């Protein structure tokens, strides 16, 4: 009960800062732009070609579900990661920099408890942000192209191709994958959170996290790293696409999410270990 009260306080702080809302605004604008372009003749021609080459009828799959999938596939890593790294990189380091931590440390709360509360707040923010992008993207797509239609999935990098003509089946898969992305992105937040526990500036925690993420993505793209692609964090984080496969491969999914959750726990533990040994002078 007390944990929930503390978590509520952390979330109140998190959502009281304009910086936290920047991501929501940016995604909202980007979704609007994607929809605008999606409705253009040229874009439709490209999508039509893509679907028809795969033996699918354009009218069935040119839908709000397909648009939502595309938005989440393209934007989450490139844009979402910035906001997750920013918020998680700030959560401890910024409070230390501003001196707020001193006020909290005068309270009978352990450092582990404090970090657990902050980590839970960051994880909730990350997850809810992904769900927000999914829901807002879908609602905007419905306004643009209507509710009807199936789901067309093409992700060459992860070798996933699927088509769901039935709306319910497509919506269910999309919802499942949104949960998958939410859990995946918590790993990125965990990385930034760990650096935030170190004796560094909040901006440094954000930049180091994004550097690691982008280096991981770049290296993964090199052809000679192909045999080792499953060792990359971003490859594992992309495992949510497997929720879209026609036949769900649970072992593959469990392996990737076990990897990510194990990494989350390790990053938190490392951050806590460093935080525990730090001196916070008044």
């Amino acid at each position, binding site marked *: 009960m*007390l944990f929930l*009260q*503390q978590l*509520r*306080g*952390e979330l*109140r*702080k998190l959502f*009281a*800062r304009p910086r936290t809302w920047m991501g929501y605004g940016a995604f909202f604008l980007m979704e609007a732009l994607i929809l605008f372009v999606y409705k253009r003749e040229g874009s439709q021609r490209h999508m039509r070609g893509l679907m028809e080459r795969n033996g699918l009828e354009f009218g069935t799959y040119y839908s709000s579900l397909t648009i939502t999938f595309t938005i989440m596939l393209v934007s989450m890593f490139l844009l979402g990661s910035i906001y997750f790294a920013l918020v998680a990189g700030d959560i401890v380091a910024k409070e230390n920099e*501003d*001196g*707020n931590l*001193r*006020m*909290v*440390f*005068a*309270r*009978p*709360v*352990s450092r582990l408890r*404090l970090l657990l509360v902050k980590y839970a707040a960051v994880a909730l923010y990350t997850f809810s942000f992904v769900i927000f992008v999914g829901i807002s993207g879908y609602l905007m797509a419905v306004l643009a192209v209507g509710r009807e239609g199936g789901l067309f999935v093409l992700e060459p990098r992860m070798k996933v191709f699927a088509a769901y003509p039935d709306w319910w089946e497509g919506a269910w898969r999309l919802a499942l994958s949104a949960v998958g992305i939410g859990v995946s992105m918590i790993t990125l937040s965990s990385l930034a959170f760990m650096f935030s526990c170190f004796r560094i500036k909040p901006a440094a925690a954000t930049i180091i996290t994004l550097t690691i993420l982008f280096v991981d993505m770049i290296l993964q793209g090199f052809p000679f790293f192909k045999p080792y692609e499953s060792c990359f964090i971003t490859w594992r984080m992309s495992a949510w696409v497997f929720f879209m496969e026609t036949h769900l491969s649970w072992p593959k999914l469990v392996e990737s999410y076990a990897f990510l959750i194990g990494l989350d726990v390790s990053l938190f533990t490392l951050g806590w270990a460093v935080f525990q*040994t730090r*001196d*916070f*002078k*008044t």
Partner: protein
Amino acid sequence: MLEASGLTKSFGAKPALDHFSFKVERGEIYGLLGHNGAGKSTTLGIILGMVMPDGGDVTIGGVSVLKDRSQALCKVGAIFEAPAFYDYLSGWENLRILMGYSGGFDPSAARETVERVGLTKRIQSKVRTYSHGMRQRLALAQSLLPEPEVLLLDEPTDGLDPEGIKWFRDFILQLRRERGMTVLFNSHLLGEVELMCDRVAILRDGKRVFEGAIGGLHDDAPLFDVEFDPWDGALALVHAAGGELITPGRIRLPEGADPAVLVESLVRSGIRVRALAPVRRSLEDLYMEIHHGATPSD
């Protein structure tokens, strides 16, 4: 109530505290003095568990901070110089969040405390709109909400105007009268420490160089500000009377010595006594003597 024993801490090669011990009895106000970097804030940091000592321990109400920080701090309130609140939230929300880490928020107790520190009208305003004095009042409110038995004050009156300083001092003294609160007061304002504290410790380079009761400052041998002409001859007579020159223009006579006897012998020797005024030895005098071996007039 609060006891530190053998506190030792170094930051890298720089020693910050060197086997510092002190004990504050229940209901006592204990002052901690020292130059910047003397180890005052490190001591406070160790008491609050923010700084890990290399050696020694602190107990609050018999509970070790190092062994059971949460239990030890459950009846402790603290105020820092320039308290850093969440500026983008209201004072009320700040109290709610901070009390979440002190066993829970009780709105009626919070209202009562806010009223007591005189912040009721502005408690719903964002902290960024507060003056320094209002922030200190909010700091006081947050420190009192857990109903502490021990209050740790780290330069709490720095930056306050004279009215604010007096209000703060009266408030703390009233708390001690009403609740028998134990207070550790860390300040550069020697006058404030003298007015508030029962006992003080003076730190220099992490070592305790003095500890004593404020009342005891005035029990020492009497001091006098003097002006004699000529000086050389007068000095010999001062020494003959058992006195000593503390600084130019200030002498100390042996306890119980009558200054009139000295004046008489000076006049008889043809020395003009232009002034001889008793001086009440202040904490500042003591502090300067310890740190510089001289008074500020030096």
